[in-house]
Every structure is written in structure tokens, then in C-alpha cells.
């Protein structure tokens, strides 16, 4: 079957065929939910935020301009919707935690993680991610899991590219610091 582009479906929706939104939902539901989940860390909340993001995208399709891809534009909506939902859930304060992990410690942690089997690695990585701030989790997810470029992450989050670079670097270091903390007693000590 011929695969149609996002732009094709958008044109059809704008002509009045709302059913053409279905392929876009099918294509992006997993990614939208997954990003929302990284920010909200609660299944029901993440599903509702992802649904809200789809409805917002549907209602604002006429304002979508091809200056960015639909994926990037839509992810910006998902990101903002999830962040505002998080804000209503609790008062977020931007924490400026000191990341105190040396390069040698980073290497030791990475080496330890590398020696784990895949199931253990998944488990510890998930624990490490859960210990990060929601926006840090989201940034790492977008960059490492969804393969968005720094520029695209900048468009989605509304941060400057240099700010994105700094934040991803810090989040990465913080993740490794958290992993080191989690693994300290169990693995690193016996290596």
C-alpha cells in the first residue's frame, strides 16, 4: 500500500476529512505517550496528556506551518501539554543540583553498566531515569531514544540550542551519578 506523508493527511483534514487524522494518531501515539510518560511518570496521566496533545494538534492544524516537520511541531505540543499537567499536579521548582561526578567515576559507572546483562541494565537505567527531574528525563529520551537532533529538541522545548546542549550534558551526567549511587553497593564495589 502506498504510504502517504503527514502533509498529505494534514491537507485532507483541513479540507474537512477528520478521519484522515487517524493515520497520524496511529503513527505517533506510541511516541507521544512515551514522551508524556517520561515527564509525568504516571500511566493514566500520561495517556490523558497524550490524548489532550492530539486534540490540541487537531484543533490547531490550520496554524501548522511547514517551517518545521509535523513530528517536531506535534512533539512540542506533547511536551508543553505534559509539562503544564505536571505543573498542575505539583509545584515544580527548577532544581540546580550540583552534579558531582568525576570523569573517572563516569567511566567506572559506564563500565559497570556495560557488564550487566540486558535485563539488569534496563532495570537500573529505568531506576536512574526515575530519579531525574521530569524535564531531564524528557530531554534524554528525545535525544537518545527518539533520535531528535539538538536543533529539533530546541524547537520542541522552546529552549535555545546552547541551553539544550548544556541541559542534555548535565542530565546525562546526573543520570550516571544516579546510576553510580544505585549500583554502588551492588556492583561497583565488587569490581
Amino acid at each position, binding site marked *: 500500500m502506498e504510504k502517504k506523508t503527514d502533509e498529505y493527511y494534514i491537507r485532507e483534514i483541513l479540507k*474537512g476529512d477528520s478521519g484522515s*487524522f487517524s493515520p497520524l494518531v496511529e503513527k505517533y501515539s506510541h511516541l507521544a505517550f512515551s514522551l508524556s510518560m517520561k515527564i509525568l511518570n504516571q500511566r493514566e496521566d500520561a495517556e490523558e496528556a497524550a*490524548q489532550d496533545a*492530539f*486534540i490540541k494538534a*487537531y484543533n490547531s492544524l490550520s496554524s501548522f506551518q511547514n517551517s518545521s516537520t509535523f513530528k517536531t511541531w506535534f512533539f512540542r505540543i506533547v511536551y508543553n501539554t505534559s509539562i503544564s499537567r505536571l505543573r498542575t499536579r505539583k509545584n515544580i521548582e527548577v532544581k540546580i543540583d550540583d552534579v558531582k561526578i568525576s570523569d573517572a567515576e563516569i567511566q567506572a559507572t559506564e563500565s559497570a*553498566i556495560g557488564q550487566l546483562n540486558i535485563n539488569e541494565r*534496563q532495570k537500573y537505567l529505568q531506576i536512574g531515569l526515575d530519579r531525574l527531574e521530569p524535564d531531564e528525563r524528557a530531554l534524554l529520551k528525545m535525544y537518545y531514544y527518539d533520535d531528535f537532533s539538538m536543533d529539533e529538541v530546541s524547537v520542541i522545548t522552546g529552549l535555545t540550542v546552547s541551553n539544550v546542549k548544556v541541559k542534555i550534558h548535565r542530565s546525562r551526567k546526573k543520570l550516571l551519578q544516579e546510576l553510580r549511587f544505585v549500583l554502588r553497593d551492588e556492583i561497583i564495589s565488587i569490581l
Partner: protein
Amino acid sequence: MSQKDLLKEWFKELPSEQPSPDFQVKVMQRVMSEWTLNPIKYQPIIGKKGWWTMGLIAFLLTSILFMLHSSLPSAAPAKTVYGLDLLQLFAPVSHLFEKLNSISPAVAIGVLAIIALWFFDQLFVRTIRR
């Protein structure tokens, strides 16, 4: 392998988080109810203001041409049927056609184009509404 690549590799190992199986159905139900409440309306390419402006321009152009062009004197002798002077009776109509004849083809084409545009616009709006 660089540190960044290692993390990327490990992230790829993470199980993908799937929404509930009826997620897409729920989204589409909401989309459909949104659509029922507020269907995406067809917006004509030329708005009301546009039509008024074009109409005014067409009217002004035609009026100016009418005013500039002097009417042709009638040389034909008077014809009467049952006492009615036919030439005098049909004078305004023949006058109108004479003047229409004198309109520059460019203006005539312009006016016709506007009428055609309006016709197709209306036709499209009615088809969409059905």
C-alpha cells in the same frame, strides 16, 4: 565507542512504553466529537471584503468608460406601430448595448472573470455544505 554512543545504545534497549490498546480509539472519538461541535469550515479564498473591493473597482471602471464614451447619434428615421415610436421606445436598450459594445475588451474580460470566480466560489461552498 564514545560515551554518548553507549548511552544511546542502552536507551535503545529500554522497552518501549505502549499506551493502552484503546488509546487510538479514544483519541479518534474525541476528535470526532470535536469535529461535530466545531467542524472545520471551508473558508473561501476570496473573502467578503475582497468581493466588495473587486465589485467597486469593476463598477468604477465601467462607469468611467461609460462617461468617457460619447453616445452615438441615431440617424435612422422614426418608425411607428400603432402610433408608438419604436426607436424611441427601445432607445435606452439600444443605448446600453452600444455602450457595452464600446467597453474595452480588457475590462469586459476582467468583469467576466470576477463573475466566473464568484460563480465557482458559490458552487464550491454549496457542494462542500452538502
